[in-house]
């Protein structure tokens, strides 16, 4: 962990807080997931990172970066942003009992793209030893709108955010199609007996491109971000059997929406005391903005904090918490609360040469100013 000098100073942050570099040298760092109860042993795992083009890195308690897995994609990404380069290895969560990872990604099959979820195992948590496919065969697209966040709920079930696949948005209302849905699975991929629809993995429908997901302890609920077409990016609390309206509308059953799209990615609740009590239970949302844009932006390149009302049906306030002010391509993408603060990835990194390249991505920590 370093103060990061120039790179950290490229981020404006809410008064009373500061930004520091937690890790650097990453390749398109996308989402992050902390080990739920990490040990204090220096070489043991603390934090996992998906890199968009098929690697998983792990940071140990001594802040050393290790390669956990690589070559997870079976096709060659084309690095086109926005567009066909925006897809790959995205979602990640850590199973608390075993330390196994669940990850989401796309793969190529017979010339088409498909979505899948895999469970990765390791004895030491630092290097993958086996990969088991839990869910696959769901049509996808080589662009955004693919399979997104994976989380484990308070009920021990696996929840999977699935984009609508972009080509035919109507699938989001089709019970026999898993696209445009939030899925609920047993950890082995089977259908839980108490799912809202009999013999179906569908937990909720009517989503477009639900990138982010986070569980809130105070109401035991799942909250997601979902990306609208040209308007109405939104936040929603996901309930069993809920219909969230897409493709007719992005506002149905939403608790907040941005009329002007900012491309919300990861979401996280401040519920473990990293920030002062005033921030307790507030929702933090990464607003990525347009893909691969240099410099600060009106659209996205921020993290906002949102206070919900008591009924969890609307918001009291929404304020900018972090904003990019540098001249590079960095934009907040993945995010999670961890030791001492809020951590986020910058996907492209600064790219000072103006070109995407290996090792330019970073993870930052936002902490209280001391």
């Amino acid at each position, binding site marked *: 962990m370093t103060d990061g000098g120039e790179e950290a100073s490229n981020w404006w942050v809410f008064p009373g807080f500061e930004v520091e570099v937690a890790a650097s040298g990453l390749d398109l760092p996308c989402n992050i997931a902390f080990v739920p109860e990490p040990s204090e042993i220096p070489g043991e795992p603390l934090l996992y990172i998906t890199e968009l083009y098929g690697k998983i890195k792990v940071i140990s308690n001594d802040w050393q970066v290790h390669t956990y897995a690589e070559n997870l994609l079976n096709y060659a990404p084309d690095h086109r942003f*926005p*567009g*066909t380069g925006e897809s790959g290895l995205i979602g990640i969560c850590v199973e608390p009992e075993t330390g196994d990872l669940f990850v989401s990604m796309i793969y190529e099959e017979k010339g088409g793209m498909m979505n899948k979820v895999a469970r990765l195992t390791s004895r030491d948590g630092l290097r993958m030893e086996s990969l088991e496919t839990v869910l696959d065969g769901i049509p996808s697209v*080589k*662009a*955004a709108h693919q399979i997104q966040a994976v989380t484990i709920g308070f009920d021990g079930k696996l929840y999977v955010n699935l984009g609508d696949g*972009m080509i035919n948005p109507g699938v989001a209302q089709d019970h026999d199609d898993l696209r445009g849905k939030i899925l609920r699975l047993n950890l082995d991929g089977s259908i839980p007996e108490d799912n809202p629809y009999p013999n179906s993995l569908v937990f909720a429908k009517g989503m477009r491109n639900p990138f982010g997901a986070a569980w809130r302890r105070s109401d035991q609920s799942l909250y997601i971000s979902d990306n609208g077409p040209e308007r109405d990016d939104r936040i929603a609390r996901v309930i069993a059997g809920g219909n969230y309206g897409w493709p007719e509308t992005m506002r149905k059953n939403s608790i907040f929406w941005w009329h002007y799209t900012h491309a919300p990615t990861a979401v996280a609740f401040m519920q473990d005391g990293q920030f002062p009590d005033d921030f307790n239970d507030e929702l933090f949302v990464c607003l990525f903005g*347009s*893909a691969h844009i240099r410099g600060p932006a009106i659209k996205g390149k921020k993290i906002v904090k949102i206070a919900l009302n008591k009924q969890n049906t609307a918001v009291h306030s929404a304020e900018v918490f972090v904003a990019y002010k540098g001249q590079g391509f960095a934009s907040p993408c993945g995010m999670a609360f961890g030791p001492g603060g809020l951590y986020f990835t910058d996907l492209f990194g600064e790219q000072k040469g103006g070109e995407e390249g290996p090792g330019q991505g970073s993870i930052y920590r936002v902490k209280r100013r001391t």
Partner: protein
Amino acid sequence: MKVPDTKENLEKCICMGCPTHNDCMKERMQGLFCSRGKSDCELDKQGCICGECPVKSEYMLAGMYFCVNGAEA
């Protein structure tokens, strides 16, 4: 709003990164469909990223799939 076929707009154009932008369109160097009109290539709709395009935002265009539907009048 009509989109001018200018070098500036072509530089902002993201058509080449679109999953629908196929080999035929690439061979014929086609793009900026919101200005130049629809493609004469055979194509399958594989998704549309017009919603992310700065040209579309700048000219406040309402449509999608300009490669299929043609330029906005």
